[in-house]
């Protein structure tokens, strides 16, 4: 999948391209907003990564113009500004995700992954299945190997998010943002504890655990046999 990186810091862009390349993407780099907008219009990309501060045309205007044209390509906005309101501005302009600098490459790749796999028919999916684990989005029921699992509402939403991104790395910040709608960092490992609770409910006593911890990155739910 082609990914367009619009970033004027060449070193950062190169690192980013390398990391995306290793994750199986086909990244292209442009250094200013105008060229970025032009290129995004003339060929198809799976995801756009746009820095906020760019020469010629700033990142937010780029996204706004893109959206005004009816282009719905997922956009991840990068910014040195991390404050809550800046984030809101970024999303209001039409960005799909917002990542403050400095970011970790793992985090960025995980987010690109989440954006790239986001299909338009997502809302229509009613069940998620990973191995013998099943989540029914209509009845809010979760079963493993046919056995029902009782989850708290928050645990259900956590599992739902993990299963929607099955096979992808999901970072702690992504969980905090999407499951709790918080855009800030707790110091304590609060997310880890929630995950271990969830894990004890879905993986306990099972021969094959589904919920993995990805060291230095986050979590992933997947079925190894696949």
């Amino acid at each position, binding site marked *: 999948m082609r990914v367009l990186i619009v970033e004027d810091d060449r070193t950062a862009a190169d690192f980013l391209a390398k990391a995306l390349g290793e994750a199986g993407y086909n990244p292209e780099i442009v250094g200013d907003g105008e060229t970025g907008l032009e290129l995004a219009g003339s060929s198809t990309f799976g995801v756009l990564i746009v820095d906020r501060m760019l020469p010629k045309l700033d990142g937010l205007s780029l996204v706004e113009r893109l959206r005004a044209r009816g282009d719905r390509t997922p956009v991840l906005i990068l910014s040195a500004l991390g404050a809550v*309101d800046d984030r809101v501005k970024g999303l209001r302009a039409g960005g799909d995700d917002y990542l403050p600098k400095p970011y970790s490459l793992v985090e960025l790749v995980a987010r690109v992954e989440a954006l790239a796999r986001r299909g338009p028919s997502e809302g229509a999916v009613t069940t998620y299945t990973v191995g013998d684990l099943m989540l029914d989005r209509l009845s809010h029921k979760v079963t493993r190997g046919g056995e029902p699992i009782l989850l708290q509402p928050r645990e259900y939403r956590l599992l739902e998010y993990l299963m929607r991104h099955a096979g992808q790395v999901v970072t702690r910040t992504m969980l905090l943002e999407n499951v*709790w709608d*918080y855009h*800030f960092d*707790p*110091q304590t490992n609060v997310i880890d*504890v*929630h995950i271990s609770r969830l894990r004890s409910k879905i993986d306990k006593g099972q021969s094959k655990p589904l919920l993995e911890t990805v060291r230095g990155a986050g979590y992933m739910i997947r079925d190894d046999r696949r």
Partner: protein
Amino acid sequence: MTAVDVVRVLPRLLLATPFRLFAVYVSLFCAAVAAVFIYVNIAMLGFLGHEAESSVQGDYDFLSARYRENGEPALVNAISERAASSKNALYLLTDGNGRWLAGNLDTIAANLWGTEGAVQFSYRNRGNEQIERPAYGIVARLPGDLHLIVARDIESQEALKRLLRRALVLGYGLIIMIGIVGAVIVSRRMLRRVDAASSAARSIMQGNLAERLPMTGRNDEFDRLSQNLNAMLDRIQDLMAGLKNVSDNIAHDLKTPLHRLRTRAERALQSSRSPEKLAEALGSVIEEADTLIQTFDALLSIARLEAGSRSVTFGPLDVCALISDVADLYEPAAEERGLTLRLSCPGGEVMMAGEKHLIGQALVNLLDNAIKYAAPAAKTGEGAEHTDVEIGLEDKGDTVDIIVSDRGPGIPKKDRERVLQRFVRLQPSRSIPGSGLGLSLVAAVTRLHDGSVTLEDNNPGLRVRLTLKKNLAATETAKPVEAAGLLSHAI
């Protein structure tokens, strides 16, 4: 004030505001005096002139009637009688050739005879012929070729005129002199005070921040101005001290982890160890970098909140839902550490205008702290009642209090103000990781919401009370952050 002094300060005095004000004032005063003088002059002289005119006319009427009825001898008699009895009445009766017949005037300017009616002339008094005196009178030609002059000496009127004129000149001189002297005195006094203030200001600008504007203790407008400027200077000095303190802290608290990071990277590079060891070293380098980034983020957030470099959009916010949410996020983490996290919400919505993520961040910081400091106490097993962390709220009408309390070691009374400042960490807790910015961020967030932070004793433990204004009218309107207002609390 010596002459040299005068020459030296004169140009400045002339430029001084009070001097100019005085000049304007004196000119206006002079104009007013002139107006009064002119009025008095006209009114008084008019009155006196009228007086002389009517008495001359009366006299003349009487004499001409007497002549008509009784003839020349009676007229001569009447004139002699009157001339003898009156002091400033003047008469002269002559025949057609100008020969004296009666009266107390003898020398007369020849041209008077040519005229008829009211005249002003001068005459020389009998007995004292050196002095010419002014007179006003009527010249008439009577039937029978007689000439009659009836007049009044108006020397006293003229004297009065001169007197008034002299008084005016003298008065002007006095007014101007007093004006100049007064202006000089007042200007010098004001200049001296202004000069003292500006020399103090210069000294402050040169870096002597402890210098203050002088006060005379008279409690006048200058003192009040100085007082306010001094209060402003105190505030600036406080801010400067705070700023210096912060930069010192930044230097220390950011350089220390940077140094650790560098050393770690250096050690890893020097010792050619196995790839696993290198990977481990790199991992801890990233960890150090992350901590640094967190500290930077917190610092930036506080600085932004306090400097008001942006406006924050306040929306309607259910405090009860927010604290339930945060409690839900922390409950498993607390349990893992052997603590019970209790939530007490009286039930139902408690709405306020606020920024959800900022207040959320503040609460998360408080819970982080509570769990961090209460957990060791829980582990030593100081009793079950010492293991609670509680988050709750008290609805107080216009304000809402959010309370986070723990049963940890608490904070001694003397340190409670201090821990709200940036980078302040109490000595015994240095072993527990943290940046020393958590509570300062909480304080900055509450101030943005027109609130305050109070640290209380939980007997044992710490109880943090955030008092927030509900401010429901402000909902959905961007709150412009007043830089000045925030700065006055800053640091």
